[in-house]
């Protein structure tokens, strides 16, 4: 929290001076002339802008109704502004943070009191209410825990460096954005836009001065963000933004992993989407039901020129990290989140069906579970495919690979039929002990056929076949002719006498 505001302070300090702008511009040109100076450029100049844009961006994303907290935080902001240059751990900032947390805990306390008080009054649907209350408290507690962790995180040695200090502040900025930022904005603008909470664009001065031509781009970017499209990280792979034409923002690990980014200023409940928060706010009073309060906050400021924002992964050495030689920025916060979780986090979600596939993004797991078990297209190499055309593409590509026929089919189709039925056939028609009564026997080992030459005779000879055949009549469940035996015997003697013809044509 302190860090974030410190950055804002930094920003405020630099912006009026105009120094950073000149500086930026020179760096900018330098960058164009000599790409090798990229790292220098990004480390020295970029953080303030990055931080700045991040804040503006979160602000634009979130509708923050923070009026309650604003007065409370004004003082601390001013304090912070003075101490903003300090890069190391700042006890006063920490104190600030803790006092904020204390306040939140008090709020939660009040809420619980309120719940206890209401309990007697509410008549209908007590269960439902209880659940809601429980959810509220849980959400509040979660947000407090997260904030506590991130405050403690600022004490870690790794974040004591200049650069990461700035980015840590960003992380917190994103996390508390909805809650805290407007107050600092007010501090920044010093009453220019005093009560225009939430929707106010803090970033006017730098943007209007610097990059105006990217307005259109920025617009489209906003649309994407607002709809929270599941942008794949690689989606912007083809995008060829020249370095320097966009701002690089870097969220901190904690912020990326935070479950919620939007918090209700009244009850503290966390939300993943601002729209959901806005819907939630309606329950807190009539004033939140106005079209203005319910409208998307970015719409009103859409005409103002903005700068393209791209995101950097906080993981050092990652291709998505801005320090990487072939840095490829991420397009949206969602991209950052998914990228970070997928690439740098443990895959803690395991598919319950197959118990093999692991995911770090729960949405990926859900997508997988939809198709898990449907991978019936199997290649001889062991690879499975959910779609036949994918399997066939694979087979086309790799020499010698063939589709595998599932093994359960072996038992089902031929053996199953032959086991049952052919056995019957054998028992009905072939009484020779040597006859191979079941096909499965033959299948298991072609060499394992009992007996000697007689077997083959029994198998092939029409005479012995027919003999058994008619002998087998006795075994029929319903022998219709009682006196049939004699007549058949007579017939057989004739048919035996019938000269055997050669079997060729």
């Amino acid at each position, binding site marked *: 929290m302190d860090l974030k505001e410190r950055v804002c302070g930094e920003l405020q300090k630099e912006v009026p001076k105009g120094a950073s702008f000149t500086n930026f511009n020179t760096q900018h040109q330098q960058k164009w002339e000599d790409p090798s100076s990229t790292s220098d450029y990004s480390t020295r100049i970029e953080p303030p802008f990055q931080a700045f844009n991040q804040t503006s961006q979160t602000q634009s994303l979130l509708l923050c109704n923070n009026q309650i907290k604003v007065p409370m935080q004004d003082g601390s902001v001013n304090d912070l502004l003075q101490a903003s240059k300090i890069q190391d751990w700042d006890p006063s900032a920490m104190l600030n943070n803790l006092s904020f947390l204390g306040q939140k805990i008090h709020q939660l306390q009040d809420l619980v009191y309120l719940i206890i008080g209401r309990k007697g009054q509410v008549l209908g649907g007590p269960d439902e209410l209880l659940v809601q209350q429980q959810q509220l408290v849980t959400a509040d507690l979660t947000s407090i825990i997260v904030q506590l962790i991130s405050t403690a995180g600022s004490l870690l040695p790794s974040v004591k460096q200049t650069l990461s200090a700035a980015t840590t502040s960003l992380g917190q900025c994103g996390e508390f954005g909805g809650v805290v930022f407007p107050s600092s904005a007010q501090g920044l603008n010093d009453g220019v836009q005093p009560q225009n909470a939430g929707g106010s664009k803090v970033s006017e001065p730098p943007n209007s001065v610097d990059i105006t031509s990217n307005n259109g781009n920025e617009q489209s970017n906003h649309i994407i963000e607002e709809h929270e499209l599941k942008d794949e990280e690689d989606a912007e792979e083809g995008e060829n933004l020249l370095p320097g034409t966009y701002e690089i923002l870097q969220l901190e690990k904690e912020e990326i992993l935070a479950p919620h980014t939007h918090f209700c200023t009244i009850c503290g409940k966390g939300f993943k989407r601002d729209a959901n928060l806005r819907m939630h706010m309606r329950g807190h009073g009539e004033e939140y039901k106005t079209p203005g309060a319910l409208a998307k906050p970015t719409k009103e400021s859409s005409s103002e020129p903005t700068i393209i924002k791209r995101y950097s992964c906080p993981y050092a050495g990652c291709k998505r990290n801005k320090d990487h030689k072939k840095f490829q920025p991420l397009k949206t916060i969602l991209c950052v989140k998914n990228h970070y979780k997928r690439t740098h986090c443990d895959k803690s979600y395991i598919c319950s069906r197959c118990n093999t596939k692991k995911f770090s993004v729960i949405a990926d797991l859900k997508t997988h579970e939809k198709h898990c078990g449907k991978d019936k297209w199997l290649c001889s190499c062991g690879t499975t495919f959910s779609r036949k055309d994918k399997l066939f593409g694979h087979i086309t590509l790799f020499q010698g690979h063939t589709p595998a026929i599932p093994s359960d089919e072996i038992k089902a189709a031929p053996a199953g039929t032959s086991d049952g039925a052919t056995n019957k056939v054998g028992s009905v028609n072939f009484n020779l002990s040597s006859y191979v009564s079941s096909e499965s026997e033959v299948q298991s080992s072609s060499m394992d056929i009992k007996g000697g030459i007689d077997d083959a005779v029994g198998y092939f000879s029409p005479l012995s076949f027919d003999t058994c*055949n008619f002998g087998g009549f006795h075994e029929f469940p319903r022998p219709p002719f009682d006196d049939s035996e004699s007549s058949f015997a007579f017939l057989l003697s004739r048919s035996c006498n019938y000269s055997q013809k050669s079997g060729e044509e």
Partner: protein
Amino acid sequence: MLSFQSSKNLLSLTEDLLVRIYELLAAESDRKSFRLVCREFRRIDTLTRRHLRVIRIEFLPILLRKYPRLQSLDLSACPRIDDGVVSLLLTRVGPGSNSPILGHWAWGLKSLVLSRATGLRFSGLEMLARACPCLESVDVSYCCGFGDREAAALSSAVGLRELNMDKCLQLTDVGLAKIAVGCSKLEKLSLKWCMEMTDLGIDLLCKKCVDLKYLDVSYLKVTNESLHSIASLLKLEVLGLMACPLIDDVGLHFIERGCPSLKVIDVSRCEGVSSSGLIFVVRGHRNLLELKAGYCLSELSTALLHQMKNLNHLEVIRIDGARISETSFQVISANCKSLVEIGLSKCLGVTNMGIMRLVSACINLRVLNLTCCHSITDAAISAIAYSCRSLVCLKVESCNMITEKGLCQLGSFCLLLEEIDLTDCCGVNDKGLEYLSRCSELSCLKLGLCTNISNKGLSYIGFNCLKIHELDLYRCTGIGDDGLEALSNGCKKLRKLNLSYCNEVSDRGLGYIGRLEELSDLEMRALHKITGVGLEAVAVGCKRLADLDMKHCEKVGDSGFWALAYYSKNLRQINLSYCGISDMALCMVMGNLSRLQEAKLVHLSNCTVEGVELALRACCVRIKKVKLFAPLRFMLSSEILEILHARGCIIRWD
């Protein structure tokens, strides 16, 4: 009888000369006579024999031992072949086999015909495929139960070049992929009626088997995507697309640009194909030899005709069912001079003048199909006879205006004529047959519904056309016993005879039929005069009888059927519907005829359910197809139905 001198001369012939003589004997009966001459000749037969078609499986082990140099084995007539038989054959060959090497016969085998071997399953098939290292050609057509496992088994025959999988109904893309990957040398593949096949399988096939020269995907529900894949086959010469409902002109557009070696294309009965699609094909393939487009064109359009001018090598064209104008004939005859076969069956607009123009230039014509071209008369036939001296086959079914004059011309000029279809030509009379009998090469004569012919006319045929092997006398009510007598005296080679509804034929006539030793197919529906005596004569005399249809022969008694059961050991198909056969006789027929594969047993008034059940039990190991009275479905025991199903038998309920 050979004199002493000549027999000495014969024996002085060296072995290789005898082998040469033997190899010149085309007909199986001649070869049989050859090997019966003496031991030495029989030894030559044993050593030289390459092909074996087995009709009685019980002799298979002995035969396989006897002929060690077999290259081609045809087991399509063995209904009882299954995995166990294959296993035994490969384990030891016959009783007293002194050959220590297992399955020695299989080593040199190149061709294997297992058509309709419905008892066989993948394990047997795999044993065969592995035992025959030289296998190049396999035919498993009409093995309806065959699917992916069987295809996988076949794919272990790596050297396979030709494969026929028509009507392997369970085959899917997966099985085809197995074959495509395993048998990459495949040159000829037929997949007719493999209804599960989709574009994916065909696409993979075209990518893996680039040497394909012949591909038949007729009746499949494949789309233009498949044609896109097929177009990439550089060596493809023959492409069969008959009755593919989802293929249209767009697909043929791919063919225009692909398949550079294409020689033959068949798009008959493709509903989506129009003349513009054919224009694509013709435009892309100037060297096309055969264009078969029956029943897919409504009209032979001028645009298509214009493109066809460039097909100078075209030998076969079939445009059955299309409307065609007289000028079109002019264009075809002027440009396609090498035409050998023209199919104009059911074409509209075929006139005498058109035919005259056509044949004026196409003098090499050998096959002409004018079925249902009702307006042609003797003038057209005369023109054909005069121009096309090498005509071999002429089909003029339902051309009512043909009379003895036309046949006279044919008998005078077309002396090479082998096949003529005069079904439903009521202008044909005894005099016409007299003229026609001058065509001594005639082997197939169809006179169905020609009610104006009598015994006299048939006697001309019996006297002159000694090579006839197929004769259709369906509903020739003028034919009686005397005609059959003349026939049996002359046409000793007769293999297929249809006497259905020739009411005059009696037991005496069937007695003459019994003299035809070569007869294998006999259809004699509704001969009300015949009794068991006649049937016995046929059964005793026609030893090769394989297909007998005697539906509605109600007077035939059990004595005839018993004779049938004793003597007609080679019978494969029988139709006994509406016959007065008793339970006992049915059991005897079904049980004793060890080669029987198909039986139609509908409306057997003297039979009980138990009798039918017993009969089915007696034949269930080998029967492949049986047609039964529908209510029996619920009366027969489920056990027998299961057994039949397990053996791959198809039951049709009527």
